[in-house]
């Protein structure tokens, strides 16, 4: 190779590499919508994501975890565009710190909490004030999300408190990292009883609902959604709009959620 | 002690096929490196299991492949001393010594700690760690450790090979004491003629995995053809003699043997003590008439019983002196000139000075060396 030939070859390779390096981050940062969503939304939201792909341009990347964990990650600088929390507390946690775009916040969905048991369980119960939950649990465990942090756990504790049975079962609770982990403890038979969302019980064949907690026994379960303050993705608003669409509503309802936001 | 060995074994490319019997106090397995001596002693110890064959000690079968019998190594009641001592680094000298004792059934324990420590002179080392011992000290402790296991048979696999000359000279007397003062039969592996001649009562010569010869040391030592080239100079007759008297004025000792009186440089042994004498064939001259006016003091009368060709220009002549055989190595030319032949009456002439510490043992090293 002549000296001149080698020089132009090097320039060509260098230009190609530079183009790649410029293109890659651009592809990452701007194209994909990144959604942080509460664990209980998994089945429903995955379906909605697919349905909204045409509207948005491409499917969003969704990360599911406990709302507490997700809020902390966003606070720590995680590059989420949209946050769907399982309770208002964690959304307020972020909006108080000016980490959301407040005018994008919408109360999207509602849910119920239920008492579940493994699908082969023979337990029968009527949930009412002062019901003997402790006896039902026996020397087993009641699986719940962490009662201090995970929304499902907080709702569950609130319900049990208002029904007057929390103190009797407090020592028998097995706290899981998120509501889906609690669900797994029941579906594998490890825990005889658990408190999860109605939508979780619907999604998991290994458990059955043995009782529904009255709506007035706990604060209303509201799933708010908002765009994060640092979000620069141009498709995020389109995704938000699609979440509130009629076809999304159908998919949410099919999993057992109630629709709070008026659909467009 | 009767040791019966009849085995065949394959180790990689090397095949060993050895068969011999020995009833001696100290049986040496002699041969160059690669001749199979170490494999053989490992088979006797039980470290290796032979492909086929039988080994028995005093009627006790250690292995018999035909009968499917195999006594595992730890039950053979054998003590072993290795070339590399192999003292346990995490135990003190005393701990090492006691190790074998602990595993010996109480009824079979005959070795006594104090006795062994005295025999080997290691009393001052008891609290030391093996890492702080010299090579010679390590071997003495290794011997002591093997003895304290009250073995029925003591195996020594080239125990002096990794020591320098001074250390060897230090330890040889201890092995002689073992042979003479304890009742334990010993099998001793070595490639050194000097060691074998000095220590062994019986010798098994190995070459390329086969037994080339086996028998009492005196006989085997004369088979110079069996010796590897580098050792040939050391070959010669081995006589068991007794100290008759010492000649103080001239600093000599007179030894008595069937062949006659033999004068050697002063030995530090009392009158009546046994001395094993090796007469190097190359140091022996032959005279057809009793020489006079000759400086050599040892003149032994005898009859030629064998004439064998040697290496190069040499021949080996065996002379029977009153029952004891003396070997001489002379040139073919001299044999021709003197017309030496079987049956001829001749005189074996040996300089006193040709005897040194390597050829007179047991005993402490003497000052005048060769």
């Amino acid at each position, binding site marked *: 190779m002549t000296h001149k030939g080698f020089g132009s070859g090097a320039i060509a390779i260098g230009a190609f590499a530079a183009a790649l390096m410029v293109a890659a981050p651009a592809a990452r940062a701007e194209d994909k919508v990144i959604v942080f969503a509460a664990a209980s939304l998994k089945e429903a939201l995955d379906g909605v994501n697919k349905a909204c792909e045409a509207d948005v341009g491409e499917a969003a990347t969704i990360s599911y975890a*406990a709302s*507490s*964990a997700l809020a*902390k990650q966003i606070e720590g600088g995680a590059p989420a565009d949209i946050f769907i929390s399982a309770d208002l507390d964690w959304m307020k*946690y972020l909006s108080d710190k000016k980490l959301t775009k407040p005018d994008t916040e919408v109360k999207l969905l509602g849910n119920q909490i239920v008492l579940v048991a493994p699908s082969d369980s023979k337990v029968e119960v009527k949930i009412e004030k002062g019901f003997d939950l402790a006896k039902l649990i026996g020397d087993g*465990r009641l*699986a719940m999300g*962490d009662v*201090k*942090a*995970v929304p499902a756990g907080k709702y569950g504790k609130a319900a049990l408190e208002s029904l007057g049975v929390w103190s009797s079962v407090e020592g028998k*609770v*097995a*706290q*899981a*990292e998120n509501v889906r*982990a*609690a669900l*797994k*403890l029941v579906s*594998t*038979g*490890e*825990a005889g009883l658990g408190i999860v969302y109605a939508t979780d019980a619907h999604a998991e064949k290994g458990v059955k609902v043995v009782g529904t907690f009255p709506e007035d026994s706990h604060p209303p379960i509201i799933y708010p959604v908002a765009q994060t303050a640092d979000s620069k993705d141009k498709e995020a608003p389109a995704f938000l709009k699609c979440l509130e669409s009629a076809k999304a509503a159908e998919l949410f309802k099919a999993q057992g959620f109630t629709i709070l936001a008026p659909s467009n | 002690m009767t040791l019966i060995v009849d085995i065949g074994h394959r180790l990689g490319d090397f095949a060993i096929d050895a068969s011999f019997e020995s009833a001696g106090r100290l049986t040496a397995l002699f041969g160059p490196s690669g001749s199979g001596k170490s494999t053989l002693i490992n088979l006797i*110890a*039980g*470290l290796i299991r032979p492909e086929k064959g039988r080994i028995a000690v005093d009627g006790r079968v250690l292995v018999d492949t035909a009968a499917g019998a195999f006594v*595992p*190594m*730890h*039950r053979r*009641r*054998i*003590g*072993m001393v*290795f070339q*590399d001592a*192999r003292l*346990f*680094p*995490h135990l003190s000298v005393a701990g090492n010594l006691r*190790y*074998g004792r602990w*595993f*010996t059934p109480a009824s079979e324990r005959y070795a006594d700690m104090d006795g062994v420590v005295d025999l080997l002179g290691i009393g001052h080392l008891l609290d030391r*760690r093996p*890492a*702080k011992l010299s090579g010679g000290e390590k071997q003495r402790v290794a011997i002591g*450790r*093997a003895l304290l*296991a009250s073995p029925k048979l003591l*195996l020594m696999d080239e125990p002096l090979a990794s020591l320098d000359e001074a250390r060897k000279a230090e330890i040889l007397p201890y092995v002689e004491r073992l042979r003479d003062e304890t009742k334990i039969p010993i099998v001793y592996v070595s490639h050194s003629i000097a060691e074998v001649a000095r220590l062994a009562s019986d010798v098994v010569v190995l070459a390329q995995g086969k037994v080339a010869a086996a028998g009492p040391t005196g006989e085997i030592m004369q088979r110079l053809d069996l010796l590897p080239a580098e050792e040939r100079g050391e070959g010669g007759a081995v006589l068991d003699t007794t100290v008759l008297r010492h000649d103080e004025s001239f600093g000599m000792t007179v030894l008595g043997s069937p062949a006659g009186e033999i004068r050697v440089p002063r030995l530090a042994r009392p009158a009546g003590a046994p001395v094993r004498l090796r007469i190097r064939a190359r140091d022996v001259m032959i005279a057809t008439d009793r020489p006079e006016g000759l400086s050599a003091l040892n003149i032994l009368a005898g009859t030629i019983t064998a004439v064998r060709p040697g290496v190069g220009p040499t021949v080996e002549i065996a002379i029977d002196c009153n029952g004891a055989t003396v070997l001489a190595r002379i040139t073919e030319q001299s044999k021709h000139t003197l017309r030496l032949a079987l049956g001829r009456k001749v005189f074996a002439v040996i300089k006193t000075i040709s005897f040194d510490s390597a050829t007179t043992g047991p005993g402490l090293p003497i000052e005048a060396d060769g």
Partner: protein
Amino acid sequence: MNWLLDLTPDEWNAVRLSIKVATVAMLFSLPPGILIALVLARGQFWGKTLLNGLVHLPLILPPVVTGYLLLLTFGKRGPAGAFLAEHFGIIFSFRWTGAALACGVMGFPLMVRAIRLSIEAVDRRMEAAAGTLGANPLWVFATITLPLILPGLIAGSILSFAKAMGEFGATITFVSNIPNETQTLPSAIYTFTQVPGGDDGALRLTLISIVISMAALVASEVLARRVGRRMDIE
């Protein structure tokens, strides 16, 4: 310093529980750890590579997956869990024993590696010499091999202990987060980080965690050096 030691009863329980769980995990891992290390170091058999891979699985699998596998096997309805509960009364489900099992499993590959290395370094001629002195293979192992691999045992134990002190994913998936029962230090720290305003408590517990682990490390160094000096291995 006062702030550091001003823990709530729950927090002290988490500290005590962590130490208990880690110690039990380490001690119960030792016998199988030594056995497997021996087999891997000296054994020649078909399936040796498979065994080696299995032992290292907890190192490569995500901890949550390991925890889930433990749940399926040793949980109330798992084959091993049901068997042990019925015949020996050993229960892992939602108990500190389950946390110890999770920690032990996660630290096992580290322990086996360390012990295996030291077994491979043992001079087998020493073992042969011990055999000629009348010790059967078991005694040879106990009196010669074991003392000679002591540094490796110490290293493996401390690695197992340290891993157990920091184990989170498998533990919380297997036995969840029950204060005084399965809430070890890492779980307690995690809970603190999930609650608004809990950073202070999280930091406190983290520092204590570091102090404990460092103390264990220093202790093992001192021990290993002492053992090495006694033997003075060249």
